[in-house]
């Protein structure tokens, strides 16, 4: 157990993995000399040198594809894509190659690759740097998607990702990097298990990544109002811990899903559909979604905050269920 930031936890986990396994290396734009766009890899170049901390030219499609190839070739690459919006440039490689190779080859090849990137809004970076598209990645069979929301998970899920036989996408909400918390050593986490962050009996609040903190604040406010909310942190979107979700809703009979992504076609809809399919009879009210507004992220602070889920909007949605 050590106190550190989310940023440090990601860095430490990478360091630990690189020390333990010579096949692990990191590549991406400015991960080396610059120290990482979010300073996540700061200091790693000094320890591991430019062969294992590889700065790449601006060419997302090819350095992600090269990660796939290197994984096929026996390495365990970690590829950092600075920001989720840029990952669209590499989506062909991820969807058409990384996710398909095992199946297309009849099981002969696998792609043990970890792709990490920052996601989400809240820093006034406007419409080309602020979106939350991790739900798209969760749509793709053949890959796994993790979304650590805590310091311990940042470390634990990264290390777990490096044990997978298949590509894992890890989404780090950019506002979480300075978050402080305890990092746990020891046991490797299992990908696909949600975490119960707060026990409650009146309503299940389901969130992940950057939305977790706001959801926990909403739960605290709800407690003041006499509503005892349970908070589930999904941690992994694919595989999704449907079991824990259904168990919770079956106890509370009400659910609100909180996600920063645009509502229409977001991952919140999937969670809603799973509850519909698995716990319909337990529901005392329709499942509600609190999501991002359907607008390219505006720059101005007040507009951006209005476009994002907030504790207040979560509280309001919960109240609407009673």
């Amino acid at each position: 157990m050590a106190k550190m930031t989310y940023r440090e936890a990601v860095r430490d986990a990478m360091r630990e993995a690189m020390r333990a396994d010579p096949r692990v290396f990191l590549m991406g734009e400015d991960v080396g000399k610059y120290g990482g766009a979010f300073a996540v890899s700061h200091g790693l170049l000094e320890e591991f040198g430019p062969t294992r901390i590889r700065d790449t030219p601006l060419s997302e499609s090819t350095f992600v594809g090269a990660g796939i190839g290197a994984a096929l070739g026996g390495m365990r690459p970690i590829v950092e894509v600075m920001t989720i919006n840029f990952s669209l440039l590499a989506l062909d490689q991820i969807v058409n190659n990384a996710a398909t190779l095992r199946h297309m080859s009849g099981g002969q090849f696998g792609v043990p690759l970890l792709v990490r990137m920052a996601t989400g809004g809240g820093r006034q970076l406007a419409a080309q740097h602020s979106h939350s598209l991790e739900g798209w990645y969760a749509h793709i069979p053949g890959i796994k998607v993790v979304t650590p929301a805590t310091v311990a998970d940042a470390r634990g899920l990264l290390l777990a990702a490096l044990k997978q036989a298949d590509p894992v996408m890890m989404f780090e909400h950019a506002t979480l990097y300075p978050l402080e918390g305890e990092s746990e050593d020891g046991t490797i986490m299992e990908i696909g298990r949600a975490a119960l962050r707060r026990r409650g009996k009146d309503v299940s609040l389901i969130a992940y990544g950057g939305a977790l903190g706001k959801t926990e604040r909403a739960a605290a406010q709800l407690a003041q109002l006499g509503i005892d909310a349970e908070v589930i942190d999904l941690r992994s979107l694919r595989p999704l811990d449907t079991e824990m979700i259904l168990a919770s809703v079956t106890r509370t009979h009400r659910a609100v899903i909180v996600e920063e992504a645009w509502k229409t076609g977001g991952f919140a809809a999937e969670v809603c559909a799973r509850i519909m399919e698995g716990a319909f009879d337990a529901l005392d009210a329709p499942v509600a979604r609190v999501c991002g507004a359907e607008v390219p992220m505006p720059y101005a602070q007040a507009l951006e905050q209005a476009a994002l889920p907030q504790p207040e909007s979560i509280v309001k949605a919960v109240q609407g269920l009673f």
Partner: protein
Amino acid sequence: MSIHKTAAACVNGREHGLSLLRQMLLIRRFEEKSAEIYSAGKIRGFLHLYIGEEAIAVGAMQALSAGDAVVATYREHGQALARGVPAGRIMAEMYGKANGCSRGRGGSMHLFDAERRFFGGYAIVAGGLPIAVGLALADKLQGRLTVTACFFGEGAVAEGEFHESLNLAALWRLPLLFLCENNLYAMGTALARSESQTDIHLKAQSYNIAAEAVDGMDVLAVESAAQRAAAQVRRGDGPYFLELRTYRYRAHSMSDPELYRSKEEVAQWRGRDPLALFEAYLRGRNMLDDADMKTLEADAANDVEWAVAEAERGGWEPVADLERDVYGSVAA
């Protein structure tokens, strides 16, 4: 690296010389002020300063007329100012105010001005190039003798869209002026660590595009190269590519600790400051004296002050209008 050698360009009269210096000075003072305001927390998000590169925007823009189009990057205050977007509307945009040139929706990285055919402000590296190809295609299809000027950094050269765009522009002989601002770094990545061929204009030539490298610290060299290039583009001879060699004095953005380059290197480039060089040039030709300089500085300070005042004065876009301008109305 060698720079294409032509006879040194000369300034076209004192008035013009002063105008070039005035514009460069405005960009510099405007950005110095922006940095201050950023530190005070009134400008937020990312702020990428152009300081050191002013000769490019100002020099190149001389070759364009009102009907031409401009496409730029996230480091585009200089281009916007040189194109004539009012400083106040730019500053207001960086504040996120409703009187900003993008109504506070875009911020520093996404400046737009339809009236001046300033098509933005693209923050995905190389993402503006295909847009510029399309604008040039639209002009060609509509028989317009206009130029689309597309600015981008040398970091964009590694991206696939650079390659695709150069090929398409050359293949279709589009009226496109590529303006590559080679400031030697893409964030912390030095050119030699991102390109197997560091002579960018040679890369452009490999697409059969007329290309040359220009001293981007010399506003007259930039101006004359841009004029020559734009004239050729207007003749319908297809695209032209200028590699403008320059340097950014400041950090990549306000959060960059600059671990990747030495103070000495920065100091050396500051020794070839485009404003100082041009000031000396004008003084050497008796086109500028201390009094002029004082006036110019006062004008710039005044313009910046007004810009800040306009930004301060502006109102916030109502939150109720959040979802405005996502869709237009059905067109005819």
